[in-house]
Every structure is written in structure tokens, then in C-alpha cells.
């Protein structure tokens, strides 16, 4: 209510400003300077200048002549209308002030203003955390805390993922750098930093981001995030086979229940080629130097290990496909078909996996 009272007072003041001169009427009509007055002042000024010795008598005389000429001209053209009251105009101005002004002001204000909102000065607001507060406020509080205690490594590591989720990548990058400074280096933090850098570049793995992932991979070769993004970097560079190799290696080494498996598999499908069985780099290097028999034994050993693992845990569609393909490559079609049967059985009660399996089989040309 106070607000509307203040508004009313202000409106009255504005209306008064318009009505006041109108009410004074013709009493105020006098006033205002005239041209002749200026010239008369100028003549007086010349007299003063001469008295002060600033101009010589001859210049003064010339100036007097000029000004007098202008004064006469001004007096001649003085045909000003005497101030006359125009009642009609005054009445319409009064109406304009009394009705038009408040209506226009209120209408304009209501379409723009928020009269229902009170003040929220900082001092009156509680700074205690509140479950109902939006995440922005909580983050702001953590940030304020960290501004004062910038060496609180735990704070930075809590803040960073929240910032990433909000898309505030630049702040997240800073938070992650601080986290690395105060919590120590680790593969996870490095690859988180790389991810934030990628995010701030709109999803492009920049060379800066790639450097972070490489550092993460150096710290822990099995860090999945680093592996995934290094593959992505290769893909974005147009080196699709390298990307596929990186991802295949990841899948080969990864536990079957790793949550990121589907993501990497999807990426692998994207760069072309099914998720074929692959050997780790070390194994490949070893295999190169072996003779035919040894190599065959090594491959057989690996395939057997895979088959045993799948018997224990049949959820791994990728593994099944690899196994089937391996048998095909080794020319053991019957084993391949039996593995296929085992696979169908293992994933039968999971529609999604079954679909993946069938798709994979189609790609292998072993539809059936």
C-alpha cells in the first residue's frame, strides 16, 4: 500500500507542476527579456570599457554607432503580441495534465514495472543454505566461500562438476585448475579439466584439451574419459582409424559392466566398422615377431579366455560379437554358430541387448 501512496504523491506533484503556471494566469505574463534590453546593456558596457581604458574613444564611438543602429532596428520590429489568455487551450492543457498524465504514466508503468515485488537488499537476506534455493544460489555461496578461502581444495572439487553441469565451462576450468593445484594431480582431475576445456570450445577437443587428456592417460593409462576423448580428438582430426583403434583398445581392456561401454560402442559404430575383436598394442607387437604356430596359439588362447569369461557373464554383447567374429576368422564356422546360440540364450531376457546382438550379427554377415 505504501508503494501506491508514494506513486499517488509523485503523480500529484507532476500534475501540480503543469497546473501551477496555468493557475497563475496572466499575472505571470510579464517577464522575459527583450532584445532592446540587451542592446541597452551593451551600450552601458561600452561606457564602462572606455572608463577602464580597455578600448580607445574612436573604437567606442564606432561600436556605439553599430549598437544604436541595431537597437533602432529591434525597436522597429517590436510588434510582439501582448500576452493574451487563450482559455480554450488552457482548459485542454488542464485536462491533459489532470487526466492524460496520470493515465499515461500508470498505463505505461503497469506494462513494464513489477509493483508486487518488494526490495531485496543484500543485508536483509539470509545467507544460510536452504533446500529450496535454486542451485545457482548454492553455487554462488560456495564460490563466495572459495573467494575467501581459495586454498580449500575440497571446495573446488565439489564446485567443478556442478559448474560443468550448468555449462559454466570457463568457471569450471578455473575450479578444476585450482582443484589440481590444491588436491594434487590425478588422472581423473586432468581428464575432467580436458572435458571442461572441450565443453568451453563447444565440443571440439582443442589441442589444449588434448594435452590434458594425454597427461591423464600418462598418469593412468586406463582412465576411460581420457581414452574416449583422445579417440574423439582423433576422429575430429579425421583420423578415423586411429579413433577406432583407441576405442577398440578401451573396450578390450574394460570390464564388461563399465557404464561408459555403450557410449564408446556408439562412437565406434560412428567412425565405421563393427566392434571387431582387437588386440592390445602390446599383444599386436608381440604377435608380429612370432612365427605362424606361436601366433595361432596366442590367438587361440585369447579367444578361449574370452569364451570362458562370457560363459561366466553373458551380458556382454560386444564380447559375444567379438567371439563369433574370431571363430569366423579362424575358419571355425560351427564353433561360431554355437557361440551365437549361447549368446542368444544369454541375452534372451534383455530386449535391448538382443537387438544389439542381432544388429552386430547382421554386420558380420552371419544373420540367422
Amino acid at each position, binding site marked *: 500500500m505504501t508503494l501506491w501512496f508514494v506513486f499517488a504523491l509523485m503523480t500529484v506533484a507532476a500534475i501540480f*507542476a503543469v497546473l501551477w503556471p496555468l493557475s497563475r494566469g496572466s499575472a505571470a505574463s510579464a517577464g522575459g527579456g527583450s532584445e532592446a534590453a540587451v542592446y541597452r546593456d551593451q551600450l552601458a558596457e561600452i561606457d564602462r570599457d572606455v572608463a577602464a581604458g580597455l578600448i*580607445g574613444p574612436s573604437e567606442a564611438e564606432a561600436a556605439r554607432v553599430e549598437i544604436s543602429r541595431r537597437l533602432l532596428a529591434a525597436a522597429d520590429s517590436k510588434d510582439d503580441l501582448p500576452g493574451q489568455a487563450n482559455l480554450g*487551450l488552457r482548459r485542454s492543457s488542464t485536462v491533459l495534465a489532470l487526466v492524460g498524465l496520470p493515465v499515461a504514466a500508470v498505463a505505461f508503468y503497469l506494462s513494464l514495472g513489477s509493483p508486487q515485488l518488494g526490495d531485496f537488499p543484500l543485508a536483509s537476506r539470509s545467507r544460510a543454505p536452504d533446500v529450496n534455493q535454486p542451485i545457482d544460489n548454492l553455487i554462488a555461496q560456495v564460490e563466495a566461500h572459495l573467494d575467501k578461502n581459495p586454498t580449500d581444495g575440497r571446495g573446488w572439487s565439489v564446485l567443478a562438476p556442478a559448474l560443468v553441469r550448468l555449462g559454466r565451462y570457463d568457471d569450471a576450468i578455473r575450479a578444476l585448475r585450482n582443484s589440481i593445484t590444491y588436491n594434487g594431480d590425478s588422472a581423473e582431475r586432468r581428464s575432467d579439466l580436458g572435458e571442461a576445456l572441450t565443453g568451453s570450445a563447444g565440443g571440439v577437443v582443442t589441442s589444449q584439451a588434448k594435452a590434458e587428456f594425454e597427461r591423464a592417460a600418462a598418469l593412468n593409462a586406463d582412465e576411460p574419459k581420457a581414452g574416449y576423448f583422445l579417440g574423439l580428438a582423433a576422429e575430429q582430426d579425421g583420423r578415423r582409424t586411429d579413433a577406432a583403434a583407441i576405442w577398440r583398445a578401451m573396450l578390450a581392456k574394460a570390464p564388461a559392466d563399465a557404464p561408459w561401454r555403450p557410449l564408446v560402442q556408439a562412437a565406434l559404430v560412428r567412425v565405421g566398422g563393427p566392434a571387431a575383436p582387437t588386440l592390445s598394442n602390446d599383444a599386436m607387437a608381440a604377435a608380429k615377431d612370432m612365427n605362424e604356430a606361436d601366433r595361432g596359439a596366442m590367438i587361440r588362447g585369447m579367444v578361449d579366455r574370452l569364451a570362458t569369461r562370457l560363459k561366466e557373464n553373458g551380458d556382454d554383447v560386444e564380447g559375444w560379437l567379438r567371439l563369433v567374429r574370431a571363430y569366423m576368422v579362424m575358419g571355425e564356422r560351427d564353433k561360431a554358430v554355437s557361440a551365437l546360440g549361447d549368446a542368444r540364450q544369454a541375452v534372451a531376457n534383455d530386449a535391448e541387448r538382443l537387438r544389439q546382438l542381432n544388429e552386430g550379427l547382421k554386420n558380420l554377415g552371419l544373420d540367422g
Partner: protein
Amino acid sequence: MIAEAGHYALVLALALSLIQSTVPIAGARWGDAALMNVARSTALAQLLFVAVSCTALVMLHVSSDFSVANVFENSHSTKPLLYKITGVWGNHEGSMLLWVAILALFGGLVAAFGNNLPLSLRAHVLAVQGWIAAAFYLFILMTSNPFLRIATPPIEGRDLNPVLQDIGLAVHPPMLYLGYVGFSISFSFAVAALMEGRIDAAWARWVRPWTLVAWIFLTLGIAMGSYWAYYELGWGGWWFWDPVENASLMPWLAGTALLHSAVVMEKRNALKVWTILLSILTFSLSLLGTFLVRSGVLTSVHAFATDPTRGVFILLILCFFIGGSLTLYAWRASTLKQGGLFAPISREGALVLNNLFLTTACATVFVGTLYPLALEVLTGDKISVGAPFFNLTFGPLFVPLMMAMSFGPLLAWKRGDLLGAAQRLTAAGIAALVAIAVAYAWTYGGSTFAPLAIGLAIFVIAGAMCDLAERTALFRAPFATAMQRARGLPRATWGTAFAHAGVGVALIGIVCETTWNSEYIGTLKPNEVARVAGYELKLDGVTQRQGPNYREMIAQFTVRLDGEKLSVMTPSKRNFTTRGSSTTEAALLTRGASQLYISLGESTNEGAVAVRIYHKPLVLLIWWGPVLMAFGGMLSLSDRRLRVGAPKPAKASRALQAAE
């Protein structure tokens, strides 16, 4: 409630400005004094409401009320109080509010002190002010409203751009706006004269002081902005021919021309129509400056095209006022009475020459600023017109202007004696030649132009002194008489001398800084020494410190000259967490008018810091010059005598020189 009261006050100011822009004109048309007087009370009430609105916004910023979008976006609770207040005009919305507040202030001043103006002239002037005000109130309320609210207020604001958190930027925008908007008064007077169809003596008497006020503030505002760029941006440059700077330089050049033609008009009743045109052009350039800076068209033409609301609105305002006033001028100027006549060689003639050069200089800046924009709009090519263009066009125009500057004040009104003036400037000429010889000998083998430019500057300064010596008869009459005459001289004469000398002083600074500047750029490790212009600067060490809303890296340098310790300089680099950006705080060591300048770059992992160290000889003169000009302007403003330019009679023997 504060926010909403401020918002409503702004709406009321809009309503009042609409009444102010219509009712008084009707009153003047039908000769009703009461209706004409409405202009006065509404102008004052408008000032009151805008003041309420501004106060409200300042209070919101001070109390960190983040429910107001403008406060949220540009403030932070840990910001020092001073920057909470100056942050009000450190952003687009707030600065536009300051713009209209100053407009209302000038309108209010005309209303309050315009008693000696003819009633209908005052009504017209205030009505034109009302139009400008209404257009800008609408612009603020529709596109840049500082009072918009956020229903669920965030707990913390986004902070002000760190480079703006500086005392220089606290003072610079109000000064600049007082200058820009001050020219609206001469614009309103010009349009009022065109509407009335006559220019009387009262008109001339009023326009010059208002122009002078605006010019003083604009001069100081530009100098302040230049000094801010010099010490805050960390590059040691003081003028970049940047479009934003040009936007303020153009009204200054046109305003300087207007100031001089208004003198002719006031004293000699001549150059009336030209003065009117200059008034219109000067304010048009102020509006153009506002458009360039506020529409975002400079950042990128394409960014402007994607969110054109603000830009298009200002462009419409621009077209309406510039187009409208020029059309009015084309239509009505012929009905105005032409003023007095004068010989080509006369004080009037010299001032016309001044106007010619200043407007041409203004036109070159205009072309250099707008051509790249136009080209980008038309062809999409991005070019930048930089210092070489301006040095080649602007420089040659200023050389003859400064030569003529010394002669002007020595010529008599109406018909002058060039030879006589030249004789009286002999001393100045000799001083200039000596200066050239000394500068050339001192810097033997260096730049050829620099000593010549120094000579020109000395000529201008000595010319201003010659003028004073001549008027006081310093070497012709006994010393006591000369002193007495000096006291009796109008303050306006002193003002002219100071302002002209200020131009020379600034020129010396510019030449010295650009020609004999020496620098050291490199990385320093602690305890390493850099040598610049005979100074030895040793990096003592680098420390970290926590400020109110930033962290800073401070480097400490010990400065020695000839092995003797002079001082300690502490440049720093501040990191503002909220905006994630940093500023360089250059350290300045002033030695006379010269300065040593250190700014820090990035620090490397090995504890070394990249530093830029400059020695800038006589650099401070660049800003002392404008301060001197503004001081001259103030002296002239304080002189409330009537101004009469006594003409030199046709066949009079050489008597006492006219005082002014």
C-alpha cells in the same frame, strides 16, 4: 519499493517531457504566457523526477539489491562502495539514465536561470529539450530499462567489468556526458531560432556560455578518458584513433568551431546562420557518438544486426533529430537576417578560417570512423582505418590552424592589420626558431619533423603570451602600469591566452612522447635489472595479495638513476574471480612532466615475469594542455560582462588595441 519508485519516477518524467514538448509551443503560437510558462515548471519537475530515479538506482546498487537485473549484472556485494556507486553508470542502462539526467539538468538550468530570455524563445528552447528528453526516456524504458526485476533474486551479482573498476572511469563518463549533452542546449536554441524565424541579441548572448560549459566538460572528459586508457589498459598508449574515441573527438572539434563562431555572433552579430548550422551539427555528432557507443554497432556490425532493437531505436532518434533539424534549417535559414559585414583580414576572418579548418578536421575524422562501418555493411569486408590515415589527414590540417591561432587574437574586429599582427608576433617567431634549433641540436640525427613541431608549439605558446604582453603594454609602459592593465583585462582575454597556450603545451607532450619514447619489453627474474633511458629498474620480487574482490600479483621494482635509489614502483596484475578476467595496474613514476611506466604481463613457471617498461618524456603535458584549455574556458565563463566587439574604425590611426 525503491526500485519501483525509481521506475515510476522515470515514467512520470516521460509524461512531463511530453507535455513540455507540446503545450509551450501551442502557447507560443497563440501568444499565451501561462501556457509558455508551463515549459519552465515541467522542466524543473522533470529534473526532480529524473533525480529521484537516479538516486533510486544508486541506492539499489549500494544496497546490492540483486532483484534488479541491472544490479545483478553489474554489481557484486564485495565491490568497494565507491565502485558500487560508479558502477551505476559503468553499464549501458545506467549510463543512459545518466545521459537523460544530465539532459534534464541542463533543461532545468535554462528554466531556472532563463529569466532574461524572451518568453517565447525560452518556451521553444525548452520544448525542443522536451522532444530530445522524451525520445531518450522512451529509449530507456523500452529497450534499456535499468529497473527491470528478477522475481527470484540471485544471491550474488556478476560484478562490474574490472577495467571499469577505476577512479578514472568514475569521473570520465559524467564529464563526457556533461559535454555531449551540454551541446543539446545550443541545439535547442538553434532549432528554437529557426522555428521563431529570428535570432535576436539575447539568443547570441545565451548560446556562447552554454557552449562553453559543454566544451569545458567535453575537453576534460576526453583528456580524462585518454589518461585512463594510458594507465589502465597497460599499453602506455594515450590515443588509439579508436571509433569510440573519435566519437567524442568529433563533437569536440565541431564544438570548438561553434565556440569560436558563437564569439563572432555575440560580439559582432555576424555569422548567425553558420552558428546555427554548427549548433545543429555539433549536437548531431554528439548523438552520433551516443549511437556508435551505445548501439553495439562498433563491436560488430553483425552482432548489431542480430539484436538490433537498441541500435535501430537510437538510429531512429538520430534520423529524426538530425534529419528534422537540417530540414528545418534548409527551410527556414533563408528567412534569418544576415549579420554584420567584415573584411577578410580581421578577427572575424581569422575565426572563419579557424572554423574552416576545424570542420574539415572533423570531417576527416568522420570519414575515417564511418567508412569502415559503411564498407562492412555494404560488402562485408572488415578494414580498419588507423593512425596512419589520421596522422596524414588530421596533422596537415592542424598545422596551419595552429599557425593562424596566434594571429587571430591580435587582429582587430571588422578590419585587421596582418602585417601589424606579424610584427607583434616577432618575439614569438624568434622563440620558435630558437626552440627548433635547440631541439635539433639536442637530438642530432633524430627525427626532422619533431623539432619543427616543437617550434610550432612554442610559437603558439609564445604567441599567446605576446597577445597578453601587447594588451598590457608590458614592455612599452612602466611595469606598474602594465600590472594595472593586466588586472583590468577582461578575464575572457586571459581565458583565450590560456586555452591557446594549452594547445601548444599538449602538442609538445604529443611530439615528445611519440618521438623520444624508449621502452624495454622482456621477461625479468627476481633480482634482474632492466635499463631504460638511463634508469635502472631491479625486480625485487613478486608477491600475491588478496583484495576485496580480486587477487593480485604485485611486483616490486627498485628504481635507480646513476646508482642512486629514487623510488620503489609496484605494478600489479589483478585477477577478478567473478568475471574471471584480469586487469593490469601499471605503476607510474612521475619525474617532472615525464613518466616511467611499468606494466606486468604473464608470469612464467620459472618465477620470471613479462614486463613492459616505458620511459615517456614530457608525457604529462598531453593532459596538462587540455586542463589548461579547460581552465581558460572557465576563466572566460566566469567573465559575466557583456561582450561587445568594438570594431576598428575605417580610418583611425592606430590607437589602443581593442581589449578583445
